[in-house]
Each structure stands twice: as structure tokens, then as C-alpha cells.
């Protein structure tokens, strides 16, 4: 009997099928200790086989796949082996025909599929993430407004630890359908800083001082070389932009704050030691009845004296 035959049957015929299923009363009478023994032996063999295959996969594939990918792959293999073992041994116990097993399986899959679409979509997204591997355990990623270190990548979800120690659990389908920025996908990453200096300060001198700090800083890469340049002449200051590359796997590149606390204080200290200062915001206020020559005589005075 195939599936089409089953669905084309009349109700009485379908009822007859039920007679092929062993009733509860007959169950214990028909199941022999040998059947139960075979069931458990099949499960144990599948388990042991799963462990052996997993071990071999880990040994042979560890240089090709990341740890979380190996975990998922070996997990799937072990579950499949257990299901096969159950599939082989259960019909013997329950005395079911293959047709009934298949019908039951389809029904169960249909019920699970309808009732847990989200779970299925998460699982499919998990397999897609496993295949594409946009990130791995230990990477620092940003996705959907959350930034942190990936703690684990599982079949249904990804777990992230943010820099302030918060544990975040993100469903796989959510990650798969949104943008993910991985700070560790490439071996080096560039940081950009802005430093404002006063108008009267020597820009070339400031560039040389900052360049020297960048050159001497161990973790700023020699190549690509760091750069310092005037990027803006704003209302209150001359803005110097600093671009420097760092190794992605350096611990301080885990978040921008750690790196800033390491670099920026050194730059500020060196600039101040050379007489170059960070400017205060300044506004020149002109009064309507102010004499025209006043501007010429006081143009280089601090704003407070001009207001007096």
C-alpha cells in the first residue's frame, strides 16, 4: 500500500487499517524481551557509532571547520543515527507496517511544521549560518542594535555577551535576516579618531607629534601606515583626523572604548606638552552700536574681554 492508496480509501477500509496496529492490551503480550533488548542494543550501538564518528570528524575536520560548526555537525549526525536506530527497532516492537510508520511520520512532521514554524525557520537559519559562517565563537559582532562577543552558535539561536556583561539570546532567523558586522572576520581593522586643536596652533607640528605617537605604539600596524590629516576647519577648532589599523584579535579591539582610553590620553598629553591645546567653544558677539574699529583692536582677545 502506498500513500495514494491510503488517501483514496473509504472510511471502513481506513478503519481496517487500525486493526493492523496492535492494541494496548495486546502490546505487552506481543512485545517479547528480545524485541526490547534489540531496541536498546540498537540505541546503544547508534550512540557509540555517533561518538566514534564525531570523534573522527573532529580529528579530521578540526583544521577546516570552527568549533561551533563541528558541534552542530556532530550533533546532527548523532541525532540522525539515533533516529535511524529507533526507526529500525520500533517496527519490530510494535509490529507496525512500514506504511503506517511513514504515515505517522508524515503526520507528525506536518503537525510540528504547522505548530512551530518559528522553530523550523530558526533551525533552517541555523543551518544557513552554519554553511555561510559569517561569524564564529569568540568573534565580536554587531547585529540588530546588539554588540558583543559570540559565546555560542547553536542550531536555533546565537548567544552573545555584550561588553557590559549582559547575556543576549538572539534567534537565528532574526540574525539571518538582518545585517551582521563582524569585527574579527578580517585580520586587521581601522579606527578613526578626531582631535581638535586651536586655530593659532601649528598644524604641521601637531601632525608630526601625533604621527610619532602612532609610529611608536606597538599595536598600530606598520603597514598599512597610520595617517593624520586636517579633515575639517570647524567653528571652534581645526579638526585632525587620525586613521590607524590594529590587529583584529588584539583584546582592546573588542570595543572602541578600550582602544580610545589607550590612545587618546597619550595624544592629548603629548600635544599639551608641546603647547598645543584643545580649544574651548568660542562665540564672538557684536553689539549693534559697537564702534567699527573695536573689532580691529580686540579681534585677538578672548571673548570675555570683548563683552565688557
Amino acid at each position, binding site marked *: 500500500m502506498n500513500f495514494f492508496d491510503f488517501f483514496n480509501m473509504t472510511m471502513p477500509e481506513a478503519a481496517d487499517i487500525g486493526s493492523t496496529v496492535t492494541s494496548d492490551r495486546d502490546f505487552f503480550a506481543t512485545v517479547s524481551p528480545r524485541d526490547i533488548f534489540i531496541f536498546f542494543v540498537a540505541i546503544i550501538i547508534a550512540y557509540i557509532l555517533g561518538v566514534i564518528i564525531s570523534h573522527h570528524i573532529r580529528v579530521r575536520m578540526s*583544521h577546516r571547520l570552527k568549533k561551533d560548526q563541528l558541534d552542530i555537525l556532530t550533533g546532527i549526525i548523532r541525532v540522525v543515527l539515533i533516529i535511524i536506530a529507533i526507526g529500525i527497532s520500533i517496527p519490530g516492537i510494535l509490529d507496525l507496517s512500514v506504511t503506517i510508520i511513514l504515515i505517522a511520520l508524515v503526520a507528525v512532521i506536518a503537525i510540528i511544521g504547522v505548530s512551530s514554524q518559528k522553530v523550523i525557520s530558526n533551525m533552517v537559519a541555523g543551518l544557513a549560518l552554519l554553511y555561510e559562517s559569517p561569524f564564529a565563537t569568540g568573534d565580536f559582532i554587531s547585529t540588530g542594535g546588539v554588540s558583543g562577543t559570540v559565546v555560542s552558535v547553536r542550531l536555533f539561536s546565537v548567544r552573545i555577551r555584550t561588553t557590559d556583561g549582559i547575556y543576549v539570546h538572539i534567534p537565528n532567523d532574526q540574525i539571518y535576516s538582518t545585517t551582521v558586522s563582524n569585527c574579527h*572576520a*578580517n*585580520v*586587521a*581593522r581601522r579606527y578613526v579618531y578626531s582631535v581638535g586643536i586651536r586655530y593659532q596652533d601649528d598644524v604641521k607640528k601637531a601632525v608630526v607629534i601625533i604621527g610619532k605617537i602612532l609610529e611608536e605604539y*606597538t*599595536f*598600530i*600596524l*606598520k*603597514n*598599512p601606515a597610520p595617517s593624520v590629516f586636517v579633515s575639517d576647519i570647524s567653528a571652534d577648532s581645526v579638526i585632525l583626523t587620525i586613521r590607524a*589599523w590594529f*590587529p583584529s*584579535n*588584539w*583584546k582592546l579591539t573588542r570595543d572602541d572604548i578600550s582602544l580610545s582610553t589607550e590612545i587618546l590620553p597619550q595624544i592629548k598629553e603629548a600635544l599639551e606638552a608641546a603647547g598645543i591645546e584643545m580649544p574651548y567653544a568660542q562665540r564672538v558677539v557684536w553689539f549693534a552700536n559697537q564702534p567699527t574699529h573695536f573689532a580691529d583692536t580686540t579681534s585677538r582677545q578672548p571673548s570675555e574681554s570683548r563683552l565688557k
Partner: protein
Amino acid sequence: MFGRYELGFSYADPEIRIQLTDNEGRVKYERECAGKTESRYLGRTFSAIHVHPVEPVNLPEALTNFLELSFPPLLLSPGSSQIIYLKFPVETGVFLESGEKRDLLDIFSLAPVKFSLYGSPSSGVITRWYYSDLYMDIPVTDKRREGVMTLLLKNSGTETATISRAVFDGASMCIFYGERVAMTATMEIHSPSIAHTTFSDTAPADCPNRAIDLYLSRAFSITTGKGYFMEAGTI
């Protein structure tokens, strides 16, 4: 400074101080180098320490396995070969002896550290970068700070090659010590953009002692050891 030392050992110069003392059964290791100190108590199972030069890719933290030596550009005609000498930074490893086993205790260095990127950010590697002048004879070095690499350059390509840097895999380094710290390597240039670097495990005459391989002492399984393919050029 390099060698095997037992309890009571003490070494001191203006920049480095190492001491292994036994104070009423408490074995203490103390080290001072370039203003940084390290101090640890050791278990009774350790009978001695070994002070050896190690692969210079560990400090200030293990970010890379690769050493990049940069030097003034050298032009090499097709089919020719030449031996040059380069200085490389020395990192000193202190190993604990426990029977046949050697466990890493400490690493320190007097050489400056700078990192670089060889290749592109997406497919390149981070390297420990070091600049050396180019020497045609073995240069004099302070072996606590710098070693000498004998580098055989072979241009097996069909074009004149310009070489100004060499990248080496730390996992296949063979370091020797004696009157100096030494490594012997070969760089075969296949084309202006591809070269292959390998190390020789033959000790130079003046450096008969083989240093402990840090990678072996860490019980890493070395599957490579076949050198490094420089696929991002030699300039």
C-alpha cells in the same frame, strides 16, 4: 645567559636580572627586564630551568605566528642566488625542567615590538615586524637583543626580483645559540608576487646549541613546518 641552570642560579646585567632561589623549601623564580618584573613560586617537582631564545612572535601577547623582516631593497637577477644576513629580534624563554618535560615559565625581550599586516586585511596575516639593515657578512649583535639570520635568496623566476621583506612562519623556525643567536633560512622567489620561505635545521658552526622549540614545548601538533608562501609580494 642561555643554557640550563639549577637552584641557586642568578644572572644580572644592567638590563636583565634572573634569579632562582630556594628559601626553606620555597623555590622562587624572579625576573626583571626593561623595568618589568615577574615573580613566581615553583613546585618541588621542578629541578632546573632552561633559558633559551624562542621564536620571536610571542610578545607582548600572542597575536601572530609570523615574523616579517623588512630591509633595504635588493635586486636579484633571474636564476641567481645570494646569501644575506639580517638581524632579527630575540625573545628569551624560561622553561621549567620536570623530568623529560619542558614547561614554559616566562618570556621576555629587550627588542622593540611592532606589528604589521602582510597582504590584505581580508586574506593577509598579522606579522611581528622588524627592520634590519642588509649585511653581506655576519654582523655583530647583542645576543640578548638581536639574532642573525642567514638568508639564502634564490630567484627561480624569469624576472629580476626586488626583495625588501621576508615573512617567516614561527611554527617552522629553528633557532640556535652559542656565540650568537642564529637562524638559517631560504627564500625562493618564484615571481615578483610569490616567494616561499623555509628554515634549515642545520646548526651554524659558531652556534651549536639548538634552542627549545616553543611550539613543541606547548605540545602543539605541527602539521605545517613547510615554511610560508608569501603571496602578497616581496616589496
